């Protein structure tokens, strides 16, 4: 099992994909924070709800990219055929999925912490530059950092499960992006009573965002999100163990 874990860590480090994802994530976080800080008037930016909203966009990006890391960890093997040598070396497939899950969780924590940290620092600096009084306290910052660091790895598990079920790399990536960037915000916007139970919204709740009471509390958020992670990862595991490798 340790060997399988080390193998998965090396797979993650030995291509440029992870670095590319990380750089893209940082650039996107910086971009959306800048847009949300520069666009609104100073008066609207002074409200606590608006300031929290600035953090919402960045949190979603961290979760999405952690999800992509999880999805790519399995779909890249299917796409390039390395799944065959992988399963020849480790014919018991359960431990391979478990190792991918662990590596994805670790990467998710790092992605979550860094994207939230960059976002919080950029937003704080931008508020200060525009002369807006920062209403967020230490507790808010802790929740933004730790909540984001908890939500991202759970999204990585969801991504792994989706990837293992969908199997097509482009399909999984496009699906996750469309879901996180488009579908959820529409559902949350129009049917918040339902939308707040979706994985993106519960992840944002975990990072301390409230969206004028539309979202769940952090405790409920972590439970709902963990539920999605367990269900999707289990589905991916079951599919991988049972299906033939082409």
């Amino acid at each position, binding site marked *: 099992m340790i060997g399988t874990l080390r*193998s998965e860590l*090396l*797979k993650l480090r*030995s*291509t440029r994909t992870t670095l590319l994802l990380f750089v893209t994530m940082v650039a996107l976080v910086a971009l959306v924070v800048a847009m949300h800080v520069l666009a609104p008037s100073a008066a609207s930016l002074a409200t606590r709800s608006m300031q929290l909203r600035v953090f919402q966009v960045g949190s979603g990006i961290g979760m999405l990219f952690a999800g992509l890391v999880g999805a790519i960890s399995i779909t890249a093997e299917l796409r390039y055929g*390395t799944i065959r040598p992988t399963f020849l070396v480790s014919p018991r497939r359960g431990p391979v999925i478990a190792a991918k899950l662990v590596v994805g969780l670790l990467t998710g924590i790092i992605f979550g912490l860094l994207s939230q940290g960059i976002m919080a620092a950029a937003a704080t600096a931008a508020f200060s530059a525009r002369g807006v009084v920062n209403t967020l306290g230490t507790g808010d910052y802790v929740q933004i950092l730790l909540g984001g660091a908890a939500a991202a790895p759970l999204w990585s598990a969801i991504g792994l499960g989706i990837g293992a079920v969908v199997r097509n790399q482009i399909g999984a990536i496009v699906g996750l992006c469309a879901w996180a960037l488009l579908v959820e915000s529409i559902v949350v916007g129009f049917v918040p009573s339902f939308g707040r139970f979706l994985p993106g919204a519960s992840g944002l709740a975990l990072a301390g965002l409230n969206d004028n009471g539309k979202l769940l509390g952090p405790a409920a958020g972590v439970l709902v999100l963990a539920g999605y992670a367990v269900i999707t990862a289990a589905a991916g595991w079951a599919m991988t163990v049972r299906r*033939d*490798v082409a």
Partner: protein
Amino acid sequence: MNPAKESDVQQPTYAISEPVESPPDDQAAVSCRELTKQYGEVVAVDGVTFSLRRGTVTGFLGPNGAGKTTTLRLLLGLAEPTGGEALVFGHRYRELVEPIRRVGAVLESTDFHPSRSGRDHLRTLALGAGLPLSRVEEVLTQVGLGTAADRRVKTYSLGMRQRLGLAASLLGDPELLVLDEPANGLDPAGVHWLRGFLQTLAAQGRTVLISSHLLAEVAQTVDQILIIDHGRLLASGRLDDIAANGRTLEDVYLELTSGDES
């Protein structure tokens, strides 16, 4: 009368004087018994039974789509049989404790991440198998890829990819090698290298099962053959017995599989 039906009932007329024997399971490197794989309506492998003694070099012949690759995937635990069984060293592949130390396989020449280096590809496999990383350097030398090992695989020629696949199959210093079309796409120099390589493996007493449709190439390397078409085993036996009485391996192969090459 439907000519396709006629070929369907063709029996293995070349399972002759000394067929590929059926040694006791614990002595066989490979044994398939009534192995069957069905995908919906399509029967890819249809009741295939054979077994290979240790130390033999066997050519697995048949047209494209005959069921060779499916048989090998069933043997290696990548797919589950619909019926029958396929065993390596008397066990299902998935039940072997450290399969990579007993069986090495190359199934596709393209099973690499294009932006991972050859060395890192081998390292991920060695780590997963619990093998020392020094084995990676040894097999790189063995296949002559040492100088290119740090380049990304996308820069490799097809011949280099075949060598990298072979290097991966040798990581565990296995007793049995299963190679699916290892000569595909190789230039003459590559084929020459591969022939010498296979002969070295055979001389070391390893068991080799090699699928191919390069008959002349196979005839130079193997000592027994299996011919499969439409998922059915049509002939099995020693090469000397099958290609006898003035008939070449090609004559026998074309007769058995006639009308299938499209």
